[in-house]
Each structure stands twice: as structure tokens, then as C-alpha cells.
């Protein structure tokens, strides 16, 4: 993706004596995973488009420690957390948006009692509020009109933090043919990546979790699956490949859908 705009870092702003109103926490997947980088860029485009004074931490960002904590390594988690909190507090950050539900959950729920008190929102919540404020409006002839779209609830956004409506409301304005998966909202089925599963081979079983999930998608006859988590994105894409449905089913993050629908 060619770079058409400048993405500011907090350090760069601080050098000019400025502070961002909103910190975009990119996360490890958003920084390093090629597919997730496109989601990151989409979030930046949206922030740029609506004129929010935002910045990223760049090389000063570290993993939140979520995979360490869920894998049982509390030491490593707290090391990461305390380092990040020091950086964030150093820059006097008060409000954070992130496109990763795992980062969202950790910073929102597990940082406060370690001294990190920030207002944290997920990018789907930000987009939803921008739509409500009238700052984002899908183009009339947007490419998603009439398309059969479903939404996969990320566990750490849905069940873990009960954010079910914001991502759905973002999709509702598209004038698309929205369909729910058989297992959705609080009954949503995991993509299989959580709890550090992303970083290990699955235990012996009869099926992969993402394949089980893809069967729900196929049953829904959706042609686009809206995702809201970079790890779900990886798992769902692997699921599509495993089912040989790459031509029929596309996985897109809510941020990417928003960018395309608004012709940014």
C-alpha cells in the first residue's frame, strides 16, 4: 500500500511540545503481520480523514503482555505492563484506541491496578461514534450495498467486554444484506487463536477451531466476513483456505470496510 499521508509518532509530537488527543495503540499483530498492517493503515486513514489529533508509539510500543498472561507467565506480563505504563504515563496519554481486542482488554482491565489508568476504546467503537456524530458516512453507491455480510465476534471484544453493538452498527449503515452467524454475540464461537493458541500447535483433536467456525460462515452464505481482531483475521483466512473458499468468501476488518465504504 503506497503511503499517501504522514503517520505521526508520539515522540515526534513531544519534540514539538505537543501531545496527541488520542493514542493509536497498534499492537504486535498490527505492527508486524502483513495482513494486519493493512488494518492498521485503515485505522490511520480514518483518524486522518476525520481530523483527530492522534499519534502512534512506533518503536516505543511493546506487547501488552496478553499472550504471556494467558499462557501463565504473570512475571513476563507484569514486566511488559509496567514498561508500557511507564511510557504511556511519561507521555501523559489519557485516551487510547486500538484495533486489537486483546490489547484493548489488557489495557482496559489489567493495567489500572498496575498504575495505568487510560480511557480505552476499540476501533469499532470509535468508528461507530464517528458515524453517530456524522463525521463518517458511507457513500451512497458504496461497494457493500446489497452484499451478504456477516460479523464474527472476537471473544475479547464480545464476551470478555460485552461490546456487541458497536461493530454491528458500523455495518448497519452500509445498506448491506447483514446476516448473523449461528453462534453469535455472547454465544459466539472462538476463532481458535486466544489464550496464546496463536503461538503454538493445537492439541490433538478431530478438527481445527477455525475450520469449525468457517462452517458457520459457509452456512450463513455470507460473501464477506467482517472481523474486528487481527488474530481472528489470521484464523478466519486460514479457515477460508482450508475450506477452499478463497474465491467466494472475503475476510475484511471493520476498519477496512469503513475505509472502502467512505471512499477514503
Amino acid at each position: 500500500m503506497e503511503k499517501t499521508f504522514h503517520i505521526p509518532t508520539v515522540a515526534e509530537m513531544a519534540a514539538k511540545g505537543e501531545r496527541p488527543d488520542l493514542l493509536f495503540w497498534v499492537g504486535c499483530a498490527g505492527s508486524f503481520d502483513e495482513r494486519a498492517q493493512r488494518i492498521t493503515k485503515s485505522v490511520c486513514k480514518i483518524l486522518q480523514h476525520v481530523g483527530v489529533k492522534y499519534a502512534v508509539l512506533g518503536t516505543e510500543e511493546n506487547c501488552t503482555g496478553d499472550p504471556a498472561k494467558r499462557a501463565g507467565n504473570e512475571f513476563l506480563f507484569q514486566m511488559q505492563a509496567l514498561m508500557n505504563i511507564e511510557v504511556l504515563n511519561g507521555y501523559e496519554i489519557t485516551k487510547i484506541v486500538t484495533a486489537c481486542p486483546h490489547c484493548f482488554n489488557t489495557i482496559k482491565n489489567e493495567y489500572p491496578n498496575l498504575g495505568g489508568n487510560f480511557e480505552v476504546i476499540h476501533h469499532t467503537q470509535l468508528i461507530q461514534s464517528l458515524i453517530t456524530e456524522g463525521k463518517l458516512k458511507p457513500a451512497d453507491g458504496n461497494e457493500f450495498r446489497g452484499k451478504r455480510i456477516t460479523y464474527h465476534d472476537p471473544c475479547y471484544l464480545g464476551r470478555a467486554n460485552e461490546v456487541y453493538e458497536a461493530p454491528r452498527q458500523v455495518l448497519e449503515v452500509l445498506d448491506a444484506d447483514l446476516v448473523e452467524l449461528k453462534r453469535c454475540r455472547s454465544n459466539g464461537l472462538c476463532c481458535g487463536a486466544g489464550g496464546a493458541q496463536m503461538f503454538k500447535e493445537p492439541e490433538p483433536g478431530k478438527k481445527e477451531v477455525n475450520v469449525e467456525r468457517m462452517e458457520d460462515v459457509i452456512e450463513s452464505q455470507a460473501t464477506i466476513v467482517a472481523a474486528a481482531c487481527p488474530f481472528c483475521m489470521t484464523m478466519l483466512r486460514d479457515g477460508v483456505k482450508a475450506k477452499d473458499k478463497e474465491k467466494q468468501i472475503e475476510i475484511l476488518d471493520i476498519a477496512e470496510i469503513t475505509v472502502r465504504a467512505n471512499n477514503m
Partner: protein
Amino acid sequence: MMGQIIFFCLFTLAVVIFARNARRIYKNIKLGKAVDRSDRPIERLKLMLLVAFGQKKMFKKPIPALLHLFVYVGFCIINIEMLEIIIDGLFGTHRVFYSLGTFYSGLIYTFEWLAFAVLFSCIIFLVRRSALRIYRFGGRELKNWPRTDANLILIAEILLMTAFLFMNAADLKLQQLDHPVYHHAGAFPVSQFLLPLLPESAPALVALERFCWWFHIIGVLAFLNYLPVSKHLHIILAFPNTYFSKLEPKGKFDNMPTVTHEVKAMLDPSLPPPTNEVGRFGVKDVQDLTWKNLLDAYACTECGRCTAACPANITGKLLSPRKIMMDTRDRLAEVGQNIAKNGRFQEDNKSLIDSYIMREEIWACTTCNACVEACPVNIDPLEIILGLRQYAVMEESQAPTSINAMFGNLENNGAPWKYAQADRANWINQ
């Protein structure tokens, strides 16, 4: 008079044994570590009323929820009748509340229909369990005793309700015969249909009525004492268990304060190192769990909604959240017995991890919280699974190889993959 004495003895015995069992369970739960769940009492009360009393989460599956509601309401309301049975038993009266007149008739009328609803539901439940292939009634942890336990409970309830209805039918027929002891009282919308099955002679009817009366009350007292060794304890513990639920978002997992001290001392050498004795990290055995985890284990009725929602389980992995709870309870009962026998816990070379729960189970968890969400009485198997992982990692350094590699990357590169920290912002210019 003889009957009254026998009744008094049986009743006292049942209450005493139940109290002893209840104390044993209470002591076992107290073996757990402290956790404060005394905050926000109003919110807790509301949650309990909604989830335990109102059975809110049951209604995710409407048909079993409705049948379960029949049994639950039947159980609660018919217990009013128990009060009358106890008074009659102790004082040798017969249907002592009959003087309440039409109100009494209304009560009996309600009990009759409820008894029928309970009977109906329990028969359907038995058929569902044994004849229909319902996913959550399968599973390797639900063989042998747990299966028998479930069937015994249903059969006991069917027998109790049958006795109750036959008792009423015999009473009605004796009333019709103007038998002196049997007051004209009550309304019998269900048991009236049993009349053709009954004997004609008054002595035979009296014998039947008495038999059913004794069968019912002895059955109830026996059932009361069956509860503590059975999964059926949920009828009592569902209430405290929902009251003491975690009120924070499900995604929040408590930070370990002892670790915070150590990490802070590591990051800032000017801080004094922690001096107080650091206990075990994570969960090796049931004593390392919190009392709420242990209460959870006793409150579990093995319905398997957690297991049926578990992504690992439904894709054929060894993990079953229900088994985590059953293992915790079984190990706790074993530890409790050990303490009762030896005065204090005597090392038995067993532990919750490895002797009960296998490593393969805990590493299959995606921490998706589906099991926690699915539980109708707010049991949290995930806390136990994560506690076991903490023990495996922090005390034993026994994580799967790829997880250890991830830890290494996190420590060195600040990311779970093998990318250099310096490259973290490369995406900005790509």
C-alpha cells in the same frame, strides 16, 4: 404414638447427618485462598435474583429451561407441603392445615399440578439423557458414577411425585367414603384420575395412604442426605455461587500482587526486595485455588453447557470445562477426607494437576470465556485453567516448546514473534 416417635427419630437423624455433611463441605470450601467478594451487595443480590432465582441464563435453551423451571418451581412450592407433613408427623395430626378451608384447597390444587409438571419433566429428562444423543450428555467424564447419579436423582423425583399423587388419591377416596380421620379438604385435579386404580376397602386405602405418606417423607429425608454426595447440591449452592460471582468484565484476570512487588523491585533497584514469604505461584492443588473456585466446584450440576460451548472440546480436544469442575470437586473431597482422617493434610503424592487434570487439557484452552458465559450458575472454569497454567509455567517452567519460544521473543523483542523491536514501526513507511 409409635409413629410419632419413629418420625421424630428419623427426622432428627436426617437433620443431624445433613448438618454434619454441610459443615464438612463448608470446611472444605474454606480450604481455599482468600478472595474478597463482599463488595457491592445490592448488585450481587440483583444478580442472584436474576441468575439463580430467575434462572435467566437457563433460557438460552428454552425447552430444557421450561422443563427445569417446572421441576424447580415444583420443588420450591411443594416444600410448603413438607411443613404440613412435618407437623402431622410430629403431632400425629392429619392434614393440619385443612382448617384454612378454601385457601388450603387452593394450595393442594396447585401442588397437584406442580407434582404433575415435575413428574412430566423428569420423565422427559430421563428420556433425553438416555435415548437422545445430546452432545452435553456425552463425554468421557460423564460415565459411571456421574451418569448413575443423574439417573438416580431423576428416578427419585419421579418416585416421590408418584407417591405424593397416590397419597392424595387415597385420601380423596377415603374422604368420599366419609372415613373419620380424613377431613373433607383439598382439591385433587390430577390424582382424581388415579381413583380407578385404587382398592375399594377402607383399610386397604388407609394402608396405601400411610405407605405413600411414609415413603414420601422418608424419601425426602433420604434425598436431603443424598445431596452432599451428589451433583444435585446445586439446588442450594446456586444461590451463594451467583451472589459471589465475579462482577468485573469476564476478560479481566486478576494481577498477582506478589509478582507486582518482585517486578517493581527488578525494574527499580532502589526499591527494597519483597521480604514476606512468597507462596506458591499458580495452582498445583485445590488448596491453591480461591474459596470461590471451590464453591464453584460444589455448585456444578454437570449439565455440560460449558463443555458444549467449548471450542476445544467440540473440535475433539481433551479439554472439557465440566471435567475441570468435577476434578476439582473430587480432589477437594479427597483432600477433605485426608484432613479429617489425619488432623491436617498428609502428603498423598497426588495433586489436582497431573493426578486429575492433564497438561494436554489446560493447554487446549483458548480462554474464550464461552464456558463461563454458558454456565447457568456463573461457574468460572477458566480461572482454574489459568491458575494451573501459572503453576506449570512459573513454578515448573513446563510450557509447550512453542510457548517458551513466544516468551523468549516477548522478553527480547517486545513482541511474540521473532522480529526486532527496532523494526516495529517499519509499517509506517511501507
